């Protein structure tokens, strides 16, 4: 298969699309947000629970249906979000968004983004950027809501 396709579907993405970390319900969530991609019908609900009395994420779980890019990016996010404050979450989403809009330019910071750097290749496929962003946008909305509360 072509090198171009493999740069989109990196092994990390294919693995996360199958393993799906954080897939499931989260009872007693402090915030939840639903996002849809109307062009392909993909949807996802992201739920977040904070460590009691703090603005630090204890757990992120999600439920959704979609392509391997959107599912893998939610799975990666479930690994990355716990332990971060709401402010850090907003910063992380901003960094991820910047990478996704880069059209393949630059070198993403793997110290900060962890497995999410695998999505750098997705940024070259403009029609798939929204797939990769779906759960991140949902988490961002959760963080905004919690910060305002």
């Amino acid at each position: 298969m072509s090198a171009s396709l493999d740069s989109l579907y990196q092994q990390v993405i294919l693995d996360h699309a199958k393993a799906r970390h954080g897939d499931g319900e989260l009872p007693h969530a402090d915030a939840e947000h639903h996002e849809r991609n109307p062009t392909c019908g993909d949807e996802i609900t992201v739920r977040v629970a904070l460590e009691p009395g703090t603005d630090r994420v204890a757990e992120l779980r999600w439920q959704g249906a979609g392509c391997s890019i959107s599912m893998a990016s939610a799975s990666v996010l479930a690994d990355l979000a716990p332990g971060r404050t709401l402010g850090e979450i907003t910063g992380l989403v901003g960094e991820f968004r910047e990478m996704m809009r880069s059209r393949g330019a630059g070198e993403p910071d793997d110290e900060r983004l962890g497995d999410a750097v695998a999505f750098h290749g997705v940024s070259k496929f403009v029609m798939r950027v929204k797939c990769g962003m779906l759960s991140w946008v949902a988490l961002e909305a959760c963080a905004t809501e919690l910060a305002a509360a």
Partner: protein
Amino acid sequence: MTHTPHDTQDEPLDDAEVALLRADFPILEQEVSGEPLAYLDSGATAQRPRSVLDAERRFLETDNSAVHRGAHTLAALATEAFEEARETVARFVGAQPAQVVWTANATDAINLVAHGLTAATLGRGGEAARRFALRPGDEIVVTEAEHHANLVPWQEVAASTGAVLRVVPVDDDGVWTLADAAAVVGERTRVLAFAHVSNVTGLVAPVEELVALAHGVGALVVLDACQSVPHRPVDVTALGVDFAAFSGHKMLGPTGIGVLVGRSELLDALPAFRTGGSMITTVTLQTAEYLPAPQRFEAGTQPVSQAVALAEAVRYLEAVGMDRVREHEEALAERLVTGLGALPGVRVVGPPAGVARSGLASFVVEGVHAHDVGQYLDAQGLAVRVGHHCAQPLHRRLGVAATTRASTYLYTTTGEVDRLLAGVAGVRAYFGAEAVA
């Protein structure tokens, strides 16, 4: 056109003639992802032959002007070309020129009828329009398989008038029958709206029988002909439908132009949905009188060069022969359905192999999302449509969020279908779905 198919009109389209036709379509000559482009998305938008591109350019270079106004030479030339285009399109679908209304696209054409009914219900259009007025409890019937363009406008009519939207259900394959429709259509039915050919399943509706059913209870028939007029002979008069809608860009023509064909007595009585310039006779500060159909429905500046190009597209299709287009695509569909059905983990929706379907096939690859299927195929130069194809209720009924659709046209080769089959065969292994299923 650059080839001369006229002496072979009795013969089916074969590979040699398709190769000649393809030479008329510059866009098909390119490579995508390092492979020859196999364009299998004509159901979404068809490609245009050079003659259609040339006709639009020629018009713009020599005749372009505002139509139906002005006394100068170009105004006369443009008006003549515009109205000749109407005659050509009318002849193509078995109608009279006055029955053809230019619209922006098929969605616009269906909205023209739907909003006309709402306007009539509000009392617009005078005595003549009362036949269209809906009362609370009147029923509009659609099918579960409709494209959003033939569903959402009817939801609006129902919400605006108090009419009830009723739905002919489909089975697990997305198929519905005359009997299914007969179980829903009743004394209160005022409109029966359905696709002649489904853009997802390729199912061909029994139009004449459905017209008899609807007319038996005094209901109007609105036919979504977007996937039929480009791909098979359609005679709206012989079919007996009241209204039919189709788009230019799906039949080798330009975007930005669609067609509503209506029975003359209905078009003459239907209230105008869009009003303004070009559709009036006398205007005062408080009131206006309107032109007869079709001009009454053509407010504002019209897509003139697009109409001219669409007429050229019609001439191209007529030169090939619509019976031959239909046979060619049905043979390709049979090859698609049989081939896809033989692949492990691939489920084709719509009529089973052996049952007539138009030249397209939508399918599900177990364990792999349609978006991923489409991306994988694109890397081999195979252009297919993925998603819900503007038919979310149908996909919900089929139990999937999205399908992958391969759709053919007169320029599609058996080799391209075989390349698609080979491509789909590799999808599950690439995404590691074989172990999951």
